[in-house]
């Protein structure tokens, strides 16, 4: 909306059109009378953590995980035959994933509803179409997971339930908690800024403690005022208290730490760094359950195989060619899967067993010959996605496209249609043990919010489902 929205809080803006009584937003949303399950979803609860790597811009399926060779394929490109339904595989781009087929599943029957980045990315973050009339009240998938996990949050948990990384350039922005309380909002990290901001190094702790103690004295009147009217300041002080608890937790120091040797092992990139942090967050098990990582620069409209676009802007620059983004992803994802699967909890299960990893773009890219500037444009008709962990049975390919990679000819699951973002959302909810059949009635705009749009809602004729085949 506008600049004016900033002048009252977002809650306040929503509230004025609210369908519920005063103060509604200042209490827990989760009142039994407002939350109803449709009674059709039986979540499997096979995961406690979810990591979503969104390939921002849209990965070209036909040049990566659903390889179609043609005149555009570079000569001497390292492509090998792989058994187990994988077929031809671009070793030149994904050499490390090629060694780890057993750990993940490829779905080649993905479909998108939209071919414009912002709107399609919004789908990935929410599982819903972008409706600007309602956008302010719609929470992201991560915020819903955060809310659903709020009851199991332990007193010792200091890390935020929903962490998002490197999303500054996401065209949809970072979808917030909508009508849910602000505490379920994403906690936003940019891996290129100093991570020491989040965890106090032992040598910095005395300085910080001194300042924090002083601040409580210097700002005591505002921060502790008890009048009803001073609630704004008290609430903000609560954020400070939460921040100090997080920064002072010894676990934060190990979570927000990037060891140079590990960075090298993860490919020395911001996506590699984000994957290290994601692993650390899962390993720490200190309150974070949903992690969203924006993997930038897949929007290869030109020179998709060309190497004539040098990386600009130094070591923190985003990779700019198809080779670079692919190799960067390969280098980051492979060690993430390795580390999650080799780290065991005391009961013998691995971190990967309890972590669903989803890696996908917001849509695919136009198959067939390259455009006259040697790139590919946006294509929602068919693309590929990678799923691992959290109960997903790896080593398989689901779905099949035609010879060109333009159309899904086998869906690979019980619905005879492509897998849409809503199905992915339902799958995430199911794995995370969230009843995705739930609806929340009387949202601020007076509507009913469905976790996943049911067929009965007006204008939705697709029966969105968990992709149970991933797990069996």
């Amino acid at each position: 909306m506008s600049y004016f929205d900033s002048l009252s809080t977002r809650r306040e803006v929503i509230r004025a059109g609210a369908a519920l009584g005063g103060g509604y937003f200042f209490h827990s949303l989760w009142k039994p009378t407002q939350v109803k399950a449709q009674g059709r979803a039986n979540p499997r609860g096979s995961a406690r953590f979810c990591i979503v790597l969104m390939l921002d811009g849209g990965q070209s399926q036909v040049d990566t995980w659903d390889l179609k060779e043609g005149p555009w394929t570079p000569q001497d490109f390292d492509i090998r035959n792989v058994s187990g339904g994988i077929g031809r595989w671009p070793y030149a781009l994904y050499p490390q994933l090629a060694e780890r087929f057993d750990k993940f599943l490829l779905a080649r029957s993905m479909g998108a509803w939209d071919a414009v980045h912002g709107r399609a990315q919004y789908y990935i973050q929410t599982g819903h179409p972008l409706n600007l009339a309602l956008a302010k009240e719609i929470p992201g998938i991560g915020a819903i997971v955060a809310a659903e996990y709020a009851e199991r949050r332990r007193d010792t948990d200091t890390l935020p339930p929903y962490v998002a990384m490197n999303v500054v350039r996401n065209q949809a922005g970072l979808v917030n908690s909508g009508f849910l309380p602000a505490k379920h909002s994403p906690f936003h990290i940019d891996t290129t800024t100093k991570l020491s901001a989040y965890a106090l190094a032992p040598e910095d702790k005395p300085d910080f403690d001194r300042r924090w103690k002083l601040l409580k004295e210097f700002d005591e009147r505002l921060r502790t005022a008890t009048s009803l009217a001073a609630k704004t300041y008290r609430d903000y002080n609560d954020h400070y208290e939460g921040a100090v608890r997080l920064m002072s937790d010894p676990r934060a120091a190990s979570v927000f730490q990037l060891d140079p040797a590990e960075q090298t092992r993860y490919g020395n990139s911001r996506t590699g760094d984000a994957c290290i942090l994601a692993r650390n967050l899962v390993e720490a098990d200190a309150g974070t359950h949903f992690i969203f990582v924006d993997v930038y620069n897949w929007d290869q409209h030109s020179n998709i195989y060309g190497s004539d676009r040098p990386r600009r802007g130094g070591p923190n620059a985003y990779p700019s060619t198809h080779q670079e983004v692919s190799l960067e992803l390969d280098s980051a994802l492979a060690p993430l899967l390795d580390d999650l699967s080799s780290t065991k909890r005391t009961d013998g299960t691995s971190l990967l067993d309890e972590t669903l990893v989803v890696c996908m773009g917001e849509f695919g890219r136009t198959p067939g010959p390259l455009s006259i500037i040697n790139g590919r444009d946006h294509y929602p008709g068919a693309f590929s996605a990678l799923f691992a962990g959290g109960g997903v049975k790896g080593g398989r390919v689901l779905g099949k496209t035609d010879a060109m990679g333009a159309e899904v000819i086998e869906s690979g699951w019980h619905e005879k249609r492509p897998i849409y973002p809503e199905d992915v959302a339902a799958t995430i909810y199911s794995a995370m043990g969230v009843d995705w059949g739930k609806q929340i009635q009387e949202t601020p705009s007076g509507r009913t919010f469905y976790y996943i749009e049911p067929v009965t809602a007006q204008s939705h004729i697709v029966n969105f489902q968990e992709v149970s085949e991933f797990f069996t």
Partner: protein
Amino acid sequence: MFVLVSGWPAYTQTPATPDMQRAHPAQGTPDNRTTASELTAAVAGGTDEPAGVVERKNLIDEYVFGKMEADGIPHAPLASDTDFARRVYLDLTGRIPTPDEVRNFVSSTEPDKRDALVDSLIGSRPFLSKWTYWFGDLARSNGNRIGNDGKNLFYQWTYNALQINTPYDKMVRHMLTAEAVSNWYDGPASYLARWVIIGATCADTVHEDTSDEIAVNSAMHFLGLNLQCVSCHDGRNHLEKVNLWLTDQKRTEFWQQAAFFGKTRVLRRTEVSTARDEYSIDDLGEGYSAAGESVTRVPRNGKDMIEPAFILTGEKPDPDKPLRDEFARMITTHPQFARATVNMFWAGMMGVGIVDPVFDFDLNRQDPNNPPPEGWSIQPSHPELLNALAKDFAENGYDIQRLLRMMATSSAYQLSSKFPGEWKAAYAKYYARKFVRRLTSEEIYDAIVSATNVFDDIPIRGTDLTVHYATETRSPEDMRRFTNAAFFLNVFGQTNRDYSERNNQGAIDQAIMLMNSPFVTERLAAEPGSFLAEAIGREPPLSDEQVVAELYFRYLSRPPEPEEAARATALVATNRQQGLEDLQWLLMNKLDFIFND
């Protein structure tokens, strides 16, 4: 067909009586507005001083204080000079005042010094930057959508229009009627170009979807109406609990509104085969088809070409005149245009709109003489004031500067946020004290760089210009080069003007940013060029007390209170270097630094 008001309401209408404001059990009512507003507002500890009588300076005060008087509602006293100075600098210019600006204002003995300060700020360069940035947010101007050249030129056009104080209705007409070979060469053309809907291939624009998008956004920005819902379906069976007026609107009526743009072609210009974010706008299209393809909305299920009709009056365009000229005339001469506009600026200055949210007017709930059905309340907190302000705005040339001056000089705007005695929720809707708001992300950035005097040279993309303040950038992308700063702004809820919404909620990561982010910590030390280095090196040397006082002025726009001065001086005296860096950190993290009260 619904007609909003047959004429201008009388200026002297008596204030609404409370019993006209009847609560709907499941509806945003003045009463629950009050509760939430009340909770989000704050005072820094109440005092027991009597409020006294404030001067009624203009029609705003007549209504605001008249209503409080009639209903026996007490109000806060006028804010102190220092509180007022900080508030009015932030609200009018987006920046905190410099110490000299505060001191000169406070020490002035001129009887009309507040009016004089407002006059000096309105039209100043920071004022023009802030409101140009504000328009950029409203129009969601960004290079990704309309090209760097497009957003830069839109900025320049808006800035110039504000500088020469172009009547607002004229600005809006320019934006709605612009024809251009390229929006990169025509400032106001970017307003329409921004709303284009791109189809499956990146070079296509989807005709009816684009017309819809323009119709939705123009009604939102210029009439305060949210037509988004009825752009897909009738209001009936959807909006009964949300908005009475919208409940009566049909999708076909929305199509008639969109049909004013049915001949408007917003075409993407292409070079080689790649699509550029450059658009032409002309009126050579064939019209709005009810069968037109949709990529963003529920499929259109009609078959005919739609004839335009204005949604508020049913008026049809003169066939001899260009459609968009007719639309621009209808929209800018309708009373709701002025009402929505003054309400939008009122919300900007006062924190909460007379109708709030500002883009959610319910036109069936505006007139106290024609109350809505049982269970619903009149929507505006001050319906007569809203009409009177709108009338005044229209009769005085849609003069934005005059409107803002009227608001900033009113006693209603100048009330303290500190309320004497016990604050009651019911007082909020009377504006019985100032609402407190967190600074916007750009305001916090600007306050930190100006208080520390540590600036980055921010290059404006696509130009040779550099600027020092976030509110001087042309769009958020200009800040991307500065990773720490861009991230800092992002955490405080900056919109990308693409699909993300501005967000002024608080969050844990904001506290971390303020306490320990590189953007902040790198500005604490006495590095060359910083204020601290200059203060430490000054000859003759400043005493500890003087440095402390100066820092309080720089950050909080006021001198330290005696107790604060003693505490801060003791801190600095123990270890000057460390003490001063600590003090800068403390001031940056004091809640009165990041809030505007």
